[in-house]
């Protein structure tokens, strides 16, 4: 028989601590599949951030560093500068990347740092119990926006992909969603491209993934995916915001 789907080799066979139905798991798998497909497991170094994915180093079968909250791009920069021929990726949530780590992600992108960033946008701080994130939708109730996010008070959600796409060093910037099989397949291709961008030495690459947090959204896994589709995508259009030009290597 031919295998249609098996566990990627770069993923360890342990139970992940994520809540039932949390798409962090799917995102992990897509990254592991890309690592397998590109055959780079033995020269890949991951950087885990602080958020629900803090334990990512337990799930990937490759070297890892656990970074301080928001600082994964700086840590990845340190690694990549020392080991330019290794593959370095960060895995960050929206609190981590779009709030406390804003300066680090903007400047890694500006420098065209040859790293791959997996950015999990679930519109909330998952790990700490569902506080408002910069990506939280207007009106969305969280534990620190009990009346719903008020744009007059907290502004409108930040669109990271669009913002980083203004930087020349950002070679590949895409936004994908994990809410159904077709989109997961597209997300898979984006992750591959983001790693290829690094392997081909073209610059900084980021894939923003619209992801679910059933626990803090107070929904079933199924409802949560519907919410991604119906609420998140309209605010966060999917697509590729920057793709590497064939020649242009700064």
């Amino acid at each position, binding site marked *: *028989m*031919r*295998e*249609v*789907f*098996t*566990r*990627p080799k770069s*993923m360890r066979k342990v*139970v*992940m601590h*994520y*809540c*039932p*139905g*949390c*798409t*962090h*798991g*799917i995102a992990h*798998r897509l990254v592991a599949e890309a690592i397998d497909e590109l055959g780079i497991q033995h020269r890949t170094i991951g950087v885990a951030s602080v958020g629900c994915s803090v334990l990512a180093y337990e799930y990937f079968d490759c070297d890892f560093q656990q970074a301080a909250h928001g600082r994964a791009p700086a840590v990845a920069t340190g690694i990549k500068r020392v080991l330019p021929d290794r593959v370095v990726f960060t895995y960050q949530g929206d609190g981590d990347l779009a709030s406390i780590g804003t300066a680090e992600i903007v400047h890694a992108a500006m420098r065209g740092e040859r790293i791959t960033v997996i950015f999990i946008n679930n519109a909330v701080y998952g790990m700490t119990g569902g506080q408002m994130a910069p990506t939280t939708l207007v009106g969305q109730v969280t534990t620190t926006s009990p009346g719903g996010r008020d744009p007059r008070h907290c502004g409108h959600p930040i669109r990271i992909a669009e913002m980083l796409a203004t930087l020349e060093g950002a070679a590949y910037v895409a936004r994908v969603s994990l809410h*159904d*099989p077709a989109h*997961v*397949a597209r997300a898979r291709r984006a992750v591959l491209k983001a790693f290829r961008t690094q392997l081909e030495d073209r610059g900084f690459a980021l894939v923003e993934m619209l992801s679910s947090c*059933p626990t803090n959204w107070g929904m*079933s*896994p*199924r409802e949560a*995916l519907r919410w991604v589709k119906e609420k998140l995508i309209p605010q966060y259009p999917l697509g590729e915001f920057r793709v590497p030009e064939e020649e242009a290597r700064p």
Partner: protein
Amino acid sequence: MAKVIFDTERCKSCELCIDFCPRNVLGLSKQLNRQGFYPAYLKDPERCTGCGICARMCPDVVIEVWRDDDEKSEG
């Protein structure tokens, strides 16, 4: 013929595989696993096409799908 293998101890009953199976051939078992969840299982193996969609939507990498080489996916 397709083969769908569940690593039931890792299943968390999220039901996403069930929701997305185009053939609607998956269900939850009545038996708790060690984690305390009712794991998913293939309730109607005959109708499974081996499309692999369930596996691709499972956040916990519970599912493996195998298929006879000549068969075509419908997913």
